């Protein structure tokens, strides 16, 4: 299918050019806390990482690991009651320090987001066209007619069949897979340099998921954007990502390339996840991780995983282990791994 790749010329808010070798996104010590009745709940805890342009970072974590909260913090979508610390430097500008108005202008243009549940992410009382056009016009000075043309282009880009008909449709008239494509189209309105994807395939059936993953790969190739792809499924992360960051209880516990994580697993939690996962054709018992993820408002002292860890020692309980660099691509937060 021949698809016209849209030009950036329509965008008013062009990010400054990046020095070669400079990461597109630098996250440093990012922490998000929410006030609760039983004290502060730390959803994101001292998270730091770099992301180069055009790369895909898979963020792997279970419910309550802080992976979605991290995406929302990067985008500045947290409620005003949240306490946020650290830096999110995108193209040399710190998103955390920005005014809400500046951040709002950058959202949807340099950086945009795809949500988990396509059934609830679209406004039910506006047509696909209305939702696309208002977004296009927010980030460009296109006329209404040109914006409609651009909307058509976007629907074609995300491979929606008979786009002219879907343009007039309301979300409830579309299937789940189709809606997720519309959500993706909305995120691509002004060719973002960074795309945040929050479990974009979790709510979809496997066969639909396979096609949406294909679409992500295809778009990344063509538009050259960097992607943070959050998922709870190790296999999905391994398929889509260049690098994987494993989150547990708000912290990154292990980070590395896909082979680093899958073959040279360093952290006991990652190993636990790998062994708990039932693989195709597996006949042996999966090895379960005992217990349940901790309450984020009442984290254990030291390593958060210690209460469930089969190899925990006294020192695991005493202080939080540092993120140890194993190779230049691989690091893990565990006292048992040796510096490489």
């Amino acid at each position, binding site marked *: 299918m021949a698809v016209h790749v849209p030009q950036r010329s329509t965008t008013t808010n062009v990010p400054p050019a990046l020095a070669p070798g400079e990461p597109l996104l630098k996250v440093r010590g990012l922490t998000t806390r929410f006030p609760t009745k039983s004290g502060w709940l730390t959803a994101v805890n001292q998270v730091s990482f770099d992301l180069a342009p055009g790369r895909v970072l898979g963020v792997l974590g279970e419910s309550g690991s802080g992976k979605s909260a991290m995406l929302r913090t990067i985008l500045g979508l947290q409620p005003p009651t949240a306490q946020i610390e650290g830096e999110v430097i995108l193209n040399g500008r710190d998103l955390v320090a920005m005014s809400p108005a500046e951040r709002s202008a950058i959202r949807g243009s340099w950086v945009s987001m795809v949500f988990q549940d396509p059934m609830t992410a679209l406004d039910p009382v506006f047509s696909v066209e209305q939702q696309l056009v208002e977004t296009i016009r927010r980030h460009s000075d296109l006329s209404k007619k040109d914006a409609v043309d651009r909307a058509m282009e976007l629907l074609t880009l995300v491979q929606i069949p008979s786009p002219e008909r879907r343009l007039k449709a309301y979300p409830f008239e579309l299937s789940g897979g189709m809606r997720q494509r519309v959500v993706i189209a909305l995120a691509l309105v002004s060719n973002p340099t960074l795309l945040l994807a929050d479990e974009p395939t979790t709510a979809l059936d496997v066969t639909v998921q396979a096609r949406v993953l294909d679409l992500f790969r295809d778009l990344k190739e063509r538009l050259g954007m960097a992607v943070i792809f959050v998922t709870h499924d190790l296999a999905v992360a391994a398929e889509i990502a260049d690098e994987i960051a494993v989150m547990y209880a708000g912290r990154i516990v292990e980070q590395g390339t896909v082979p680093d994580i899958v073959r040279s697993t360093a952290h006991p939690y990652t190993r636990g996840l790998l062994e708990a996962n039932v693989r195709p054709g597996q006949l042996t018992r999966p090895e379960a991780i*005992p*217990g*349940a993820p*901790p*309450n984020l408002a*009442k984290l*254990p*002292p*030291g390593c958060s995983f*210690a*209460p*469930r*860890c*089969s*190899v*925990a*020692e*006294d020192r*695991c*309980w*005493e202080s939080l282990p540092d993120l140890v660099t194993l190779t230049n691509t691989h690091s893990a937060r565990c006292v048992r791994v040796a510096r490489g």
Partner: protein
Amino acid sequence: MTTLNPAASSIAARWREADAPAAPESYLQAARRRFMKHRVGQVAFGVLALLVLSAIFAPILTTYDPIVGTPADRLKGIGSAGHFLGTDEQGRDMLTRLLYGGRLSLIAGIVPVLIATVIGTALGSFSGYVKGWVAALIMRAMDMLYAFPTVLLAIAVSASLGPGLTNVIIAMTVVYIAPLARVAESATRRVVVAEYIEAARLTGAGTPKILLTQVLANIFSPIFVYASGLVGLSIVIAASLSFLGLGVKPPAPEWGFMLNSLRGTIYVNPWVAALPGFFIFLTSISFNMLADAIRDSLDVRG
């Protein structure tokens, strides 16, 4: 889940102990704990308790007769000697009549809501659970009743029944059944799709048993919240009916009726004339604030 950790260090042991779940607390216990922290709700509850108690113990609190007045003491102002809140157009002590009046006003306001809650919950939960044509018929009838303005319906029914406390209570009960049945029905519909209802059906339990043991406890909160909010309005509607002469028969004291009979004196003794209305307002707002506090405590969105 047993977590057999080889390193059962003292830190680990201490943390595990601290991490053990809080003492089991049922839904109602949690609601009570939240209510205990709700200051507005407690003030409202206190005011209502005071109003109810003073209506019950009116004969002890005052020595005047609520019905027979002293013509010589007519239309005394607020703060007059012997008549703290003044007197009415027949020389009866206002405080006495207000205390006694609370009896009828509170009964006329609360009793219809209580009866209608029972009937409405029965009709609504039955219709929501059983479905079928009987249920559809019941709910369409409820919709029609609901479509009619409350006050007009109450006036129409009680005008046809004739005056008197019982008739007012009947009229208002009829009026409240429809909205309560609708609340109960929609709450039931939300509950019956839950998997635990299917689980209960799988045990072979019959419909009445499931309604009583599984459904009722779960539709209780929205119904209770709605009904407690309705009481505030019901106090006003009951007073409106007797203000219009459809309620109690004179000379029995009742706030709405008192307000009506004092209407003519507003140019002479305005602030005494406004007193019964203030009591209606006080009762109603206390019920409304209590209802909001209950809603917050039960954690029902609304």
